[in-house]
């Protein structure tokens, strides 16, 4: 008998070993996803003894995209300017050309579906910006989030890469600067939020005399929509540049020295060496760090909450903050719907980036 049990155990061992991990994922990832999907399709009211859940279909999504919350999520749509139409048509044409180019080669049905979804989302986003930003009306929380993601990550990547390149050089005190540049990553975002809120205060902040001296005493960063958004990006960058810096520095230090030295011997300039030798070596790491940073940036919530509470108006409100405010209302259905919309946009953009940039780069390298 024991031998029979042992044999059975042996046969099942692969399932048994993986079971704890599967259970953990089911409990902590899959179940919350399903529960929040149910919430997103419901109107939830808290009452004594629990919840009263009423199924409302896609009403919560409809409200955000077409209904009374459209201005909040997508922005305020008015008359669309000529520039906006031109931009939309140009983006549409570009996406069609991109799809046609794919169709001319070997087509894999899953790749086609993915590209169609990516193209639809990109076109939707382009149209949204055209109908709001380029037409002189307000962008919503989706636009604000994308602004934080793309402008913020671009700035952070550029500065982080620059610092990494400098610190990779044999300069005096580089160990000290490596530690200093890394410090902001250790600080809690709440502390950073309050610190930058104080720094931006032109009337009673620590730099108030300076602002007044340069004639900005009557100017408030946080009351101008774009200034407030930029200031949040400044704070966010201050926190996250160290992350990019550290990862890229490690990548730079792994670039084979003999290749760089060979380039120097052959008379290549610094920029040529960086373009032809260094960048191809660190590109996979750079793409990964961008992907991680983009995913993180989509979830930005603490800085706008603390620095401006989403204001002025809704100018600095990210989608996560939008969902948080709805949850606090408490409007759990709307909150879950916004969260799912965020998940959808994040997944489409990040998967597209991974498949169309990272995988393509790897396959090109062979």
């Amino acid at each position, binding site marked *: 008998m024991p031998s029979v049990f042992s044999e059975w155990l042996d046969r099942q061992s692969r399932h048994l070993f993986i079971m704890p991990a599967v259970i953990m994922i089911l409990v902590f990832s899959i179940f919350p996803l399903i529960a929040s999907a149910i919430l997103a399709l419901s*109107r939830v009211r*808290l*009452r*004594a*003894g*629990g*919840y009263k859940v009423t199924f409302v279909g896609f009403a919560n999504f409809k409200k955000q995209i077409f209904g*009374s919350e459209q*201005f*909040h999520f997508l922005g*305020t749509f008015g008359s669309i300017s000529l520039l906006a139409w031109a931009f939309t048509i140009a983006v549409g044409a570009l996406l069609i050309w991109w799809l046609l180019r794919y169709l001319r080669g070997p087509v894999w049905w899953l790749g086609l579906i993915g590209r169609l979804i990516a193209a639809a989302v990109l076109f939707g986003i382009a149209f949204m910006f055209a109908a709001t930003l380029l037409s002189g009306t*307000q962008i919503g929380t989706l636009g604000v989030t994308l602004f934080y993601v793309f402008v913020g990550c671009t700035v952070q990547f550029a500065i982080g890469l620059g610092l990494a390149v400098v610190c990779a050089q044999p300069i005096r005190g580089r160990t000290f600067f490596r530690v200093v540049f890394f410090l902001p990553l250790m600080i809690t975002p709440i502390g950073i939020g309050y610190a930058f*809120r104080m720094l931006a*205060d*032109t*009337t*009673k902040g620590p730099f108030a005399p300076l602002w007044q001296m340069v004639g900005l*005493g*009557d*100017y*408030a960063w*946080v*009351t101008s*929509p774009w200034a407030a958004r930029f200031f949040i990006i400044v704070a966010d960058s201050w926190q996250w540049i160290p992350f990019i810096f550290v990862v890229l520095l490690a990548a730079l230090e792994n670039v084979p020295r003999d290749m760089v030295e060979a380039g120097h011997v052959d008379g290549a300039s610094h920029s040529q060496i960086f373009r032809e030798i260094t960048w191809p070596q660190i590109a996979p790491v750079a793409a990964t760090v961008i992907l991680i940073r983009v995913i993180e940036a989509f979830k930005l919530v603490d800085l706008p909450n603390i620095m*401006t*509470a*989403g*204001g*002025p*108006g*809704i*100018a600095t409100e990210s989608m996560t903050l939008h969902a948080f*405010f709805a*949850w*606090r*209302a*408490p*409007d759990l259905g709307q909150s879950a719907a916004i969260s799912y919309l965020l998940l959808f946009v994040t997944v489409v953009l990040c998967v597209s980036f991974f498949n169309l940039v990272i995988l393509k780069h790897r396959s090109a390298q062979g």
Partner: protein
Amino acid sequence: MKIVTKSVLTALFGAVALTGATAVAQAQKMYEGIEINLLTRPGPVIAGRLEERGKEFEAMTGAKINVASVPFADLFQKLLTDWATGTNSIDVGVFASGWAVELADGDLLADLSDFVANDPDLDLDDIAPYFREFNQKINGKTLLITIDGDFQMLYYRTDVLDELGLKPPKTWDEYLEVAAAAHGKDMNGDGVKDFGSCMFKKRNAQSFYAIMSIAAPFVQTQGTSQGIFFNIETMKPMVNNEAWAAALAFFKESGKYGPPEELNHDIGDTRALVTSGRCALMLDWGDIGPLSIDETTSKIKDLVGASILPGSTKVLDWESGKLVPCDAKRCPHAIDGVNHAPFAAFGGWSGAINAKADPKVIEAAYKFLSYMSQAAQSNYDVTQGWTGYNPYRISQFETIEPWVEAGFSRESAENYLGAIGDSLNSPNMASDMRIPGTQRYQGIILDRELARFLAGEVTAEQALENIEAGWEEITEEFGRDGQLSMYKSSLGITN
């Protein structure tokens, strides 16, 4: 014999005294081992005094009071979630009385009527009628214990106005005139130009209370039962009209005479400016009076006057939605042609107990709230600015000595208490919203549209249309008939 008798009597009194002391001690420690978890906003305002009084209460009764806090904007959601989901980690909530209606609608609050009826120490008759009958009760049951009385009032710098030869503004138009005249003057002697007006206008804070205070005299003329939010026949919002548009226009205009960062100023930021002597006019709850006498932080001791909120000479015609001039019929409560409607903003911090708490915990929690509210404690607490508590007991208005002992001059104390008394006794006092969903009507929709209007994202007309549409959605969601019934009840309309 005399010696024997004296000895016996001494022994007898001693025994009685000892027995009495033991009995008192037993009675006092009757809640030994009980822990009460209380949730409120972060201290020192409100929470700080609860912690201190909690330690006193523990020494007397043995019940341990654990005071936890969350940001103001999270407070309602935390309480509702904890109590509705059956988590029940919180026994007592100290929050805005207006929020209690939604909690009571879900049967989440313990009925305190019997406790109150059998509690002579609370001295119920000493609590001003508005707070006793309106603030503490929902549908005839006492579900809350008031520990703070809240009215927004106008504060003005007496020295600045004297220097300018101006009188305190009686209307919102006069407010702007005075603010314009004072703006840019150095009001605290530091050589820096100061501000004509200070109001907190940050989103997701408490700025929406200010717009209701400003709108109230434009909207309400016929007494408290008229209300300022909804039509009492149809429950349609009464916001998309010229009265609220005038209030919005005033609120934005006042920013011209305020600090540049006013849109990002919470109540704490504004009070810091006020007490440092940088504001000529300000709109706030009763806290400014006691804060002004704190010599460690204030530069405006005995330099601040208080008055009932400014009013309007033009009021809303409820039929047409237009502003029309006040006359004796339209404004029966007007003073010198000015219609005032002092707004009971927030209603006051009040304590409520989780209906699902253990009966012994409910009893101990009630005793603690009663202890907080009793005159022996609260008559002192309301004179201390840092506590955040404002007067709500008749004895607090009638006895001026505690205020003088706290540091007020007699004249300042009389002026301050007079302003609150004028608000409290006004027949046209405007009541805050007290229906299910109040937090969403005010804290989400009104607050967001107000912020968007101030930021220039929408016009006043668009903001009011959005508020109307948003409020209608919430009313439909909760059920129009139920909401109407609750709204009428909150205004004291019983038919």
